């Protein structure tokens, strides 16, 4: 019992805590607090949320998976479940690992359900206790915290300190309530004796719990972000929220504009004035930014565009995950102009890749797209920020005030990259005329429709675009995980799922993660295209598989598609991979 019930992670077997309840009950926050604490204690964690598009009620659940080894994605089956309401108990009754403990709110449901005999079901009268403690607004998530703390073997003191630090309102009532619940669990806890060996694991230096979106925001800021323009849209919104909150410390400005169209055009204005700028949305909002995206191509505006996908088309499924926007991201914007598209395969990579992309945008005065998805954007993992930041090599920002005789915004040059100057008396004198144009233009930036000028300016942009594509070679374009076995292609959060699945698969396999999607790293990929491949993606039509086949001579043995909005469970995915390999 000690062995199976133990929440102490074993080699390759992360433990999972799952908290379920109604929206508005603080399920996610509780999970994040626990994850942060585990991370602080030196565990690797992955924290993910399943929620609906509603503010109160419904059914949300949040998972925390942790281990001494890196954890790349969350597990469906848990070792400890806290069900704050009946729906949660019902929904997750079978989501238990053998030996798990499932604590539920006995005031909301009498436990009368069938259950796996290896699971310990414990009912606590959470409502009644809440009524006793709270005068006005009660917070049932304190119970979740208390239960988890108890089972993890954290002390009552730490519980109280944590609550005081993380929940600013109603501190006293919260602590009182948490203590009561903690006491209830304590005997159970003692009997199984599952305390976490405090400090027995060396702290990961500088490890911090970071969501993909926070990592994106930090990466952009690292590369100099001054402005972020957006209109809220799940799952991109938290980039806006995070940066808005950092306004005073980071001196970066996150503007919630009247629409995506406004955001994108404002962004180009800020770039013109000399500010490093990004925009972000999900597919539907990015669709509204397309005309401006094309303007960035024409005006040669360095602009970082962040697209975080959810299931489509149209409004689709707002709070779930998908990878349906690959072609959409690759081929956006009317007219021909260069761009690059890349997708991070972890939160840490999100930080470095975003920084790289913003730098490349400025080096080549081009729009660039960071494509990600809800699962990566909104899930959190431990990131050793200072190391990651250190590892990220970025060019110095050029000094742009040196003067030239007459300035031509779109001067022809050897590499198609024209000198960039900024308006204003701080950056030049009265004779400096900087003209950006949405029309085809002369080097001066004045409009043209002459046959020769159209051709020359297109040639210039194409030359520049080739340079941009070439420059991606200075960065890591693919990542390969595993050193033998069949090749499995993926990008984005699917790589996380595959890396976790690899721990449970009876065969070895190599994951080829495509970080840069446009241009594809054809040369880097040569080593991997000889064998029959497996492609895994969150799409119903297999666009990644199609895209790979369009560009590589690749035999695809099996295309594994998952498109219900949910991430893969790593164990299920391992089975699918085994099937694919066996096939």
């Amino acid at each position, binding site marked *: 019992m000690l062995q199976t019930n133990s929440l102490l992670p074993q080699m390759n077997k992360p433990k999972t805590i799952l908290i379920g309840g109604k929206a508005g009950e603080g399920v996610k926050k509780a999970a994040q607090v626990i994850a942060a604490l585990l991370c602080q204690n030196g565990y690797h964690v992955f924290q993910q949320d399943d929620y609906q598009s509603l503010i109160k009620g419904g059914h949300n659940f949040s998972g925390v998976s942790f281990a001494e080894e890196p954890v790349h994605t969350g597990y469906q089956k848990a070792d400890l479940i806290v069900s704050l309401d009946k729906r949660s108990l019902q929904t997750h009754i079978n989501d238990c690992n053998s030996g798990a403990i499932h604590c539920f709110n006995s005031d909301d449901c009498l436990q009368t359900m069938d259950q796996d005999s290896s699971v310990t079901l414990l009912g606590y009268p959470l409502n009644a206790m809440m009524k006793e403690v709270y005068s006005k607004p009660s917070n049932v998530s304190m119970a979740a915290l208390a239960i988890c703390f108890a089972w993890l073997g954290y002390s009552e003191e730490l519980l109280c300190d944590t609550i005081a630090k993380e929940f600013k309102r109603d501190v006293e009532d919260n602590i009182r309530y948490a203590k009561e619940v903690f006491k209830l669990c304590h005997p159970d806890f003692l009997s199984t004796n599952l305390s976490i060996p405090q400090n027995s694991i060396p702290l990961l230096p500088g490890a911090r719990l970071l969501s993909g979106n926070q990592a994106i925001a930090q990466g952009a800021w690292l590369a100099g972000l001054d402005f972020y323009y957006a209109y809220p849209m799940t799952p991109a919104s938290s980039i806006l929220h995070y940066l808005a909150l950092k306004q005073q410390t980071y*001196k970066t400005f996150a503007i919630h504009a009247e629409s995506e169209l406004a955001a994108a055009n404002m962004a180009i*204005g800020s770039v013109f004035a000399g500010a490093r700028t990004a925009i972000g949305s999900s597919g539907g909002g990015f669709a509204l930014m397309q005309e401006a995206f094309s303007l960035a191509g024409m005006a040669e505006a360095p602009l970082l565009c962040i697209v975080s996908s959810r299931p489509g088309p149209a409004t689709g499924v707002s709070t779930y995950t998908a990878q349906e926007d690959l072609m959409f991201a690759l081929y956006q914007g009317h007219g021909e102009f260069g761009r690059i598209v890349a997708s991070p395969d972890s939160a840490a990579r999100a930080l470095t890749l975003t920084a790289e992309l913003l730098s490349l945008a400025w080096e080549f005065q081009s729009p660039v797209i960071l494509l990600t998805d809800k699962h990566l954007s909104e899930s959190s993992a431990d990131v050793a920020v200072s190391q990651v930041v250190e590892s990220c090599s970025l060019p110095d920002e050029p000094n742009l005030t040196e003067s030239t005789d007459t300035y031509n915004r779109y001067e022809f040059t050897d590499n198609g990259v024209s000198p960039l100057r900024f308006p*204003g008396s701080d950056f030049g004198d009265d004779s400096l005329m900087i*003209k950006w144009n949405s029309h085809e233009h002369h080097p001066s930036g004045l409009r043209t429709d002459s046959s020769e000028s159209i051709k020359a300016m297109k040639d210039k942009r194409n030359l520049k675009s080739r340079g941009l594509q070439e420059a991606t070679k200075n960065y890591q374009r693919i990542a390969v995980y595993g050193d033998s076995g069949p090749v499995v292609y993926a990008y984005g959060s699917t790589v996380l799922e595959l890396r976790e699945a690899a721990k449970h698969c009876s065969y070895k396999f190599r994951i080829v993660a495509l970080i840069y999607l446009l241009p594809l790293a054809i040369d880097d990929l040569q080593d991997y295209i000889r064998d029959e491949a497996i492609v895994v993606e969150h799409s119903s039509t297999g666009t990644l598989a199609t895209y790979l086949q369009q560009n590589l001579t690749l035999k695809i043995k099996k295309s594994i598609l998952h498109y219900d909005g949910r991430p893969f469970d790593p164990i299920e995915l391992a089975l699918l991979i085994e099937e694919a390999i066996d096939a």
Partner: protein
Amino acid sequence: MRELGTNKENTWCTGCGNFGILNAVKKAINSLVAEGVPLADIVMTSGIGCHGKIFDYLALSGIYGLHGRAIATAEGIKLANPKLTVISFGGDGDSLGEGLEHTLFAAKRNIDLTLILHNNGNYGLTTGQFSPLSTLGYKGLSTPFGSIENPFRPIPLLIEAGATFAARGFSAKPDHLASLIHQAALHKGFSFIEVMQPCVSYNNNYTELNNTVKMLDIVPANLNQAIDLAGDSDNVYLGVFVRKQLPVYNESLLGSFIPVKERFTLAQRRKMLGS
């Protein structure tokens, strides 16, 4: 007096009201420069339409943006470098059709910009289709049997949205217009100038305007009066309808901080993030 012109061939129709606007703008800019505003600190944005061609004829830095989006682009410039004086040129289709939303939000925010609306009552550049300011019954290629919509009243609409400076000029009175532009550029907050701009090709209302324009002597005492005067359909009043001081968006956001000047270095950012 600076020339402020470019070497680009002018392709407006002979007699077009846009010439008057161009002259007025040049004059206003000269006044600003004479008063000490560095020319390098004056930038422009323009939409797409006949009005937008002013971009090619004015030796100012700026962005010849997308149809309807010039004002959003201008906002982005102002926020990144609030030291700049930003003037945006829009058409009636551009700023009150495709880009209506941005125009009204810029006014709502009272961001410190000037919008010059070239009101020629039609879509000139795309061959004279009806516009949001075309009169009921206007016949254009998209409304061959006459427009069935009433026009917006731009000044009342912009005042309602929050413009703190609102005025009307006439391209045939470039000196008066120059003075309005000068005032608007100096006004702290969102300034809107509706310019009556005859389009000789599709909406030649010179005579009509000459018969109906009247000068406003003073800024109307209150908002209702301003709106009534601006909305008068018998008399086309020229002058300033509203001028008031309210907090401006860029200052509320930035205080005295100038984003493009006071940037952290890469080293600083590395350090702040890592710690």
